[in-house]
């Protein structure tokens, strides 16, 4: 199907916490430009997978290669620098600062690595770039507001905007629409996916909302007890009996007749 080399190659990935198996021999190839939805019940190992890819958790065994480079053993920050970034289920932002200060710190870190971090941070160029980012994520009206007074939705947008500032080639979003109202979720995802398309970034996102999955992704990975039970395009995946039983929660036909 795809003849290019995969941008992310996960092979034989295991993670155990005592008797609990959070990753059970995961093997995935991700190609540049894909938008992948990761689904699964709570505790299925979705966030654990994201944590391992981003270096927050060390796998028990296995390999994660990004553009041919091994990521296992790298610190979180080095994974970010090499080109993989993430957002969080509970937004991780600087709560005592304003929106624009959050963005400017993210920009300053991304643009001033090493000794350059000693250069004065405030500059016109930086503030113009901040405004550009705010514009792109529809947050211009919140520019000078303190993050502590913002709604969950705006915080999530800010979280994602900050993750993208380092210009990652792969972005992992952990439940981007959790905590966002049903009315706003599509508008929110349109803003996010629209902004990401401009950056040409490969996206993997964890999501519980099957409407969002059906609308935005090109491929679905379904997790169950640390295992990938389906790796298919969304329409097929959502109809897969295993997925229906273990992820969506509808008992599939066999168990119905059996009961």
């Amino acid at each position, binding site marked *: 199907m795809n003849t290019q080399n995969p941008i992310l190659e996960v092979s034989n990935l295991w993670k155990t916490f005592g008797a609990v198996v959070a990753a059970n021999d995961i093997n995935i190839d991700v190609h540049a430009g894909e938008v992948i939805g990761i689904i699964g019940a709570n505790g299925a190992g979705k966030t654990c997978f994201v944590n391992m890819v981003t270096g927050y958790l060390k796998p028990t065994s296995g390999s994660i290669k990004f553009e041919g480079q091994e990521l296992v053993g790298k*610190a979180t*920050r*080095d994974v970010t620098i090499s080109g993989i970034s993430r957002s969080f289920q509970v937004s991780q932002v600087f709560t005592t600062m304003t929106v624009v200060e959050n963005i400017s*710190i993210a920009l300053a*870190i991304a643009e001033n690595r090493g000794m350059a971090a*000693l250069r*004065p*941070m405030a500059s016109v160029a930086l503030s113009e770039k901040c405004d550009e980012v705010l514009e792109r994520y529809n947050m211009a009206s919140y520019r000078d507001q303190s993050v502590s007074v913002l709604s969950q939705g705006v915080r999530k947008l800010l979280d994602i905007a900050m993750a993208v500032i380092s210009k990652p080639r792969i972005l992992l979003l952990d439940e981007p629409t959790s905590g966002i109202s049903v009315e706003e979720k599509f508008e929110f995802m349109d803003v996010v996916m629209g902004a990401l398309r401009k950056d040409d970034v490969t996206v993997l996102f964890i999501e519980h909302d099957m409407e969002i999955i059906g609308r935005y992704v090109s491929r679905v990975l379904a997790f169950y007890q640390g295992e990938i039970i389906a790796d298919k395009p969304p329409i097929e995946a959502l109809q897969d009996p295993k997925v229906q039983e273990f992820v969506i929660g509808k008992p599939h036909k066999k168990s119905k007749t059996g009961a």
Partner: protein
Amino acid sequence: MIMAFDRTDIAVLLSCIAVIVSGLFIPDWMINQFMFAFARALAVLGLMVLWRTGLVSFGHAFYFGLGAYAVAIIDNQLGVTDIFLRLIVSIVIAGIAGFLLGYVLRNYRDIFFAMLNTAISMVLYGIIVKTEALGSTDGFAISLPTLFGHSPEDKYPLFVVICIIAAACAIGVNFYLKSTYGKLTTAIRDNEVRVEYLGFSVAHAIHVKYTISACLAGAAGSLMAMSLGQVDPDSMINWTVSGELVFITILSGPGSVLAPFIGSFVFEILRTYAFEWAPQAWQAIVGGTLLTIIFFLPGGIWSLIEKIFGRKS
């Protein structure tokens, strides 16, 4: 690298000149107050950098004491009297100690960070008190410092040097706080996970800040020792000295690099007068002042200055 002076830097320079000039007219005891205050303020400046990062060290008397004792030992053993040479030795020794201990301390936060610093300082205190060669509880007297080979008659030249060093450190720290490195102080306090995920090592950032604070405390101890003309463990390394530094940090507020100098001077005057008015209960006056500040000016004295002059630095 572009280094532009901002309002704070100009305020520091002008204040420095004003204080140096005023030194020609004010009485000797006042000059002493300025010297003690500004020397101590350098350590407070370092604590301010840590405080902005969300870290309170309750043991910076360790570096203060190292700086002070370095002066005493090179004076008594080697006869080094040059003010700058003494200062450099103190900073280097405190800096190396801070850099090495930083590998341990950068892994701790909150009360663990605070008390681990205390523990380290009390080990040094214990060693000095028990060691005859290090002056034990009596300490050492220190000869008057010389300046480029000249032996000044009075303390004015030392006062001028302290003012200039204080201004240079304030401007240096201000420059640092404006950089990406420096701006990470509040960011680290707010959310370490995000800083790591933005691609910056929190441990490294804290290590740098800790080493800077150690160097500043070393310089403070060095200048204090030269101003006092003597060192002893109780006035240089005991935990009460660390407490005093934290006290002044809260009194000053973290708002500006000028704050530690104002706060430190207020503290010096407050203590002097409190002692004069109520020799038996001066601590109660000092403590009451701190409580008042915490209740009514949580941003310290600096926040009052901001309100009066309507400026933010």
